């Protein structure tokens, strides 16, 4: 998709990189983020119940999806534009063997006195096309 503010339209979409999730990728994310919560490392621990939820095994860090969305946005924006905000919530666990991919859809553009903004709905889907993370992003374009 183009990234020229004046040529953007509501409904335009961007696609991010496909990401293969494995035990190794999760372990690498532990090392890179310093988040060694046993949710991501310990199969025995993950056999237990978390309230009414049983994950059945280790899960990927939700922030890994966050990082992929952010990467998609910074790869898309033109020089001079700034990735200003990202909000996500997680709707489904991601497990080793899954393949996930972020995408974005422009939902609004707004011109202020000193700045121009693009608002996007963002989503990360797994290989079954199920959303695993959803949210919103804001990009500031040069005036």
């Amino acid at each position, binding site marked *: 998709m183009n990234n020229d503010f004046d040529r953007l339209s509501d409904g335009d979409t961007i696609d991010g990189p496909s990401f293969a999730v494995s035990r190794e990728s999760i372990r690498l994310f532990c090392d890179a983020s*310093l988040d060694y919560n046993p949710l991501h490392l310990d199969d025995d621990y993950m056999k237990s119940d*978390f309230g009414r939820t049983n994950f059945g095994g280790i899960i990927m860090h939700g922030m890994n999806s966050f990082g992929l969305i952010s990467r998609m946005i910074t790869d898309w924006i033109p020089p001079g534009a700034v990735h200003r905000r990202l909000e996500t*919530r997680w709707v489904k666990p991601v497990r080793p063997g899954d393949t996930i991919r972020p995408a974005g859809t422009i939902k609004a553009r707004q011109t202020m006195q000193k700045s121009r903004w693009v608002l996007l709905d963002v989503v990360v889907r797994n290989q079954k096309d199920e959303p695993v993370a959803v949210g919103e992003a804001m990009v500031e374009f040069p005036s």
Partner: protein
Amino acid sequence: MVQAQGFETDFWKDANLRKGWDDIVPGEPRKTLPYTLTQQAIALYCKAVGETNPLYLDEKAAKAGPHGGLVAPPSIHILLMFSCTPADDWMRSPGTINAGQSWSYNIHARPGDTIRLEARALDKFIKRQRLFVVHDNVFFNQHDQVICSGRGQTIRPA
């Protein structure tokens, strides 16, 4: 395994010293640690999320780029959160489930920056029998410039 020097990777260690949901006081500042961001740590983070942008990884290209040198990707706060968090902080409690986060970005962090975190629990509540805590966080560089600010919700282990 690559890790920050001195960083305790066993989140079970001293888990009993951390505050549970009952003990967390909304509004009370959390203890934090300064952290010097290295190019090695940035490169490892980039590898974990597949980042190949030369602005983060190629010193020569970055020097000729818009920032005049290497910078970290905006989402580097994912690393900064734990690197600035002491071992006895409740954010490291095993079983902490991340329910959602929002972050605003001001300026890039750079390799060599000494990062400071100001953080607190902002709210706590019970919803559908789950114990939630809202936390807010602001990362500063050594010049007291805001790098980014964010808020998140975690579900606390019972």
